[in-house]
């Protein structure tokens, strides 16, 4: 099963692809605490969908892990799984464990 550092690397690669489309003054830091989506965050829903889509694609093609990061399980949560890099990482790990 994929571990936390490998998963962070997958998310950072997706963030780097987003950064390539953003001005130099508006880059997203490749760090666990980087805010992604929700109040006070920097991504709009176009950016969030791009990030999630890239993460899902890399997980299935490079790690054989077929997960959906936006479905009824995400709807059932009390806190946003897309709030920061760390919450997204932990959410994917939770899905991978079948929790």
């Amino acid at each position, binding site marked *: 099963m994929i571990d936390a550092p490998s998963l962070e690397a997958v998310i950072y690669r997706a963030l780097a692809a987003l950064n390539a489309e953003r001005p130099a003054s508006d880059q997203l830091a490749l760090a666990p605490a980087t805010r992604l989506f929700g109040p006070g965050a920097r991504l709009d*829903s176009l950016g969030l*969908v791009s990030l999630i889509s890239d993460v899902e694609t890399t997980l299935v093609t490079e790690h054989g892990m077929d997960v959906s990061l936006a479905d009824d399980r995400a709807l059932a949560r009390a806190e946003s799984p897309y709030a920061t890099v760390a919450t997204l990482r932990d959410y994917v790990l939770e899905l991978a464990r079948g929790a």
Partner: protein
Amino acid sequence: MIDLAQISALEGRHVRLRRLRPEDAEATLRWRRSERAALLNRGAETVEAQARWIASRPPDELNFVIELAAGGVPVGMLSLVGIDPANGRAEPARFLIGEPARVEGVPAAVEAMLLLYELAFERLGLRRVYGTVASDNTLMIKWQKYLGMREEGRLRAHYQLDGRTQDAVCLGLLAEEWRAVARPRMRALVHAGSLPRPPEP
């Protein structure tokens, strides 16, 4: 089918879609001339021409301004055009977030599209929505596909945009795909935008 003239607004949690009016000419023209709209078809050149264009929209179109539900600030536009009840189809079009800084962290774009699809499939009873995106607009193509659209073909050298000849990528979404794939994904993303951030570690 319901009378399109009776549809004045679509209410969401984060955004509200209300009908486009000639008074929106200045804002919508500014949005259409922004760098963000470089991969859309060019529109009117003046505010007066834009107002005339808005006033002359045909009856088979629904043109909306996307407003933030909190405060009613206009942030973009979205349309459903070519509404064809006989064939059960229509085309989402003119989708543009004109005030990107105001929608950071807010699921404005995805909820606007969710409201438009709910109208198309659940209220108008359409079987299919479809459209084309310029091939250089890779973010929008990725966005539409993740939210349920399927690529159905490609029109070669179809657009001359942003100084380049580009293909048109043809995308479509059927009612059953909307209910099985698109709606759950969109609802999850809209819901996530409403949730509190976890406490800082």
